[in-house]
């Protein structure tokens, strides 16, 4: 069945809401407006205002309330409009949701799912274009997911809700309009990375909104006789390093593509894992394509220059290979 990423997110939430009365959705404009990205259109009418809760602009308050509701026996899906605004809720996420289980000696777990849009590419300028997945992936106690395909958009929410601990799901804003076939076997785990394209010459390792770019780069490389393998991390914390290592043992070369800023990026963590686990498999230094170290500018040509792009990935891959 063909559908958009948006529709896949919608169906996943619909299924969860219909299946489990403990599940409810809350966030800014999820109800009457139909969701900022229209992912909950029609839900208010179908499930009512008790379970589709529009919140005021109070990110710290309603994310914290989601944590409390999870402790109290519910299964909240809390939507923070975008990662940019999640900064206002970071205290509750880091100091409470992530830490509670351990600091209470294992007495309390927080079965909370936090969804948020992330990423740049729509000329929304510095305050609306962050890719801070890496900040979340730094925090022990939470699981961080980055569905990059229609299948994962459909499949990841179920296991996320079943997880007894907090799960943060990043939906890249550029992906909502992505259209594709929903695979028959869309049910998936939230633990492993996926090989999205097989290849033998170089591993392109990426996640989220950069996956389509990496796949396009692999296509271009193929035209030049280079077989790139594309790895979709899917789960940003904990990282599935076994899949990375298996790919590196085959290709011996890697380029990491990450929309985050280069310094202290998730790409840096991936590279560190590769160096720790695959050092003797490497034939060349690992390269990375990240965002330039600048608040994302508004002007189109400047924004494009600031972000990872297909030509940069192709060039990095060729450089690693020595072509």
């Amino acid at each position, binding site marked *: 069945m063909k559908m958009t990423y948006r529709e896949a997110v919608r169906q996943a939430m619909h299924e969860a809401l219909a299946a489990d009365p403990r599940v409810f959705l809350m966030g800014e404009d999820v109800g009457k407006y139909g969701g900022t990205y229209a992912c909950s259109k029609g839900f208010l009418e179908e499930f009512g205002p008790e379970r589709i809760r529009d919140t005021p602009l109070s990110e710290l308050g309603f994310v914290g309330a989601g944590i409390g509701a999870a402790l109290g026996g519910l299964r909240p899906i809390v939507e923070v409009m975008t990662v940019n605004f999640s900064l206002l809720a970071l205290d509750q996420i880091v100091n409470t949701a992530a830490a509670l289980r351990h600091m209470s000696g294992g007495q309390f777990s927080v079965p909370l799912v936090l969804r948020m849009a992330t990423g740049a590419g729509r000329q929304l300028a510095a305050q609306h274009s962050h890719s801070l997945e890496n900040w979340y992936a730094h925090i022990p106690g939470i699981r961080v997911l980055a569905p990059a395909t229609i299948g994962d958009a459909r499949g990841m929410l179920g296991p996320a809700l079943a997880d007894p601990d907090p799960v943060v799901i990043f939906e890249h804003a550029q992906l909502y309009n992505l259209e594709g076939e929903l695979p028959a076997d869309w049910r998936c785990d939230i633990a492993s990375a996926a090989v999205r394209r097989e290849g033998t010459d170089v591993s392109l390792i990426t996640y989220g909104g950069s996956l389509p770019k990496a796949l396009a780069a692999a296509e271009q490389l193929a035209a030049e006789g280079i077989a790139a393998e594309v790895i979709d991390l899917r789960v940003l914390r904990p990282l599935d390093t076994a899949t990375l290592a298996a790919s590196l043992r085959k290709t011996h070369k890697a380029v990491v593509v990450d929309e985050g800023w280069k310094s202290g990026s998730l790409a840096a963590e991936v590279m560190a894992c590769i160096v720790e686990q695959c050092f003797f498999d490497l034939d060349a230094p690992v390269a990375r394509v990240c965002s330039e*170290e600048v608040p994302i500018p508004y002007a189109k040509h400047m924004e494009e220059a600031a972000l990872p792009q297909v030509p940069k990935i192709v060039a990095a891959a060729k450089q690693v290979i020595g072509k």
Partner: protein
Amino acid sequence: MIAPPPAGPVPWDKGFAQKLLADMLRIRRMEEKCAELYGAQKIRGFLHLYIGEEACAVGAMHALTADDNIVATYREHGHALVRGVSMNAIMAEMFGKSAGCSRGRGGSMHLFDAATRFYGGNAIVGGGLPLAVGFALADKLQGRRAVTACFFGEGAMAEGAFHESMNLAALWQLPVLFCCENNLYAMGTALARSEAQTDLCAKAASYAVPTLKADGMDIVAVHEAMKLAAAHVRDGLGPFFLELQTYRFRAHSMFDPELYRDKAEVEEWKARGPLHTFSARLKAEEKLTEEEFLAFDARANAEVQAAVDFAEAAPWEPVEDLLKDVHTP
């Protein structure tokens, strides 16, 4: 429920009244053109129009002086223009050109201009309020008699930043003029669906800050209220909270399908529109003729066309400058 259109005498001389009308027209024509240019993809990103709310920025800004600081939101085109940022610089910014008031880095939501003490252009709801408190603190500690006017929507009043800022400003008796433009909606969320206390002045008053509400569609009411509020703040009597009750005629942004409000409601509010009601009042008092109105309109349109031409012709910032100004050189 919706009040009758603003009416009654205009207690201003003809020159001043006409100046304010002309400023409202400049904002309206500029933004109508922006909407058109958005359709033509000359302006991209988010574009939040102020159409319908012009009396707020115009009435308020004319009660301030050049020493005052302005802090605004992403719906700030009108504020920037009336504050004195040139339409050319605003339009070039919307185009993403380096001749823009933020060198094309900010776009519609991030207009900045040091010369007019216009400190943005903040697209994080509530983000400007603590900053305003800090400006006021700097003014107070350095003995300046300036007002920091901080504009924000009613939606921002649900954020912690509002409460923390109000308390700090009141506790330290700082010269902040909190100016809430209550247009009844925060994106798709109506006031009554986001606030337990919908009387915003009652909320603000709990911080021991004096408050006043004014009809934001009535430029006379806005300006007189703003004068009073600014005088209070400037005289060192501490912060002030002003609520301007207004309405946006257009969608929240260009992405908004407006499923959350009735067309009839929008039409009712349009009957209270600040431009035509103020023009009618001035005409009734013989402070404006139709010819004068048309001349102001023509002048506004000419200014807009010149700004568009300027923005079109302006060069793009070279890509090599991408990393410029991340840190102070």
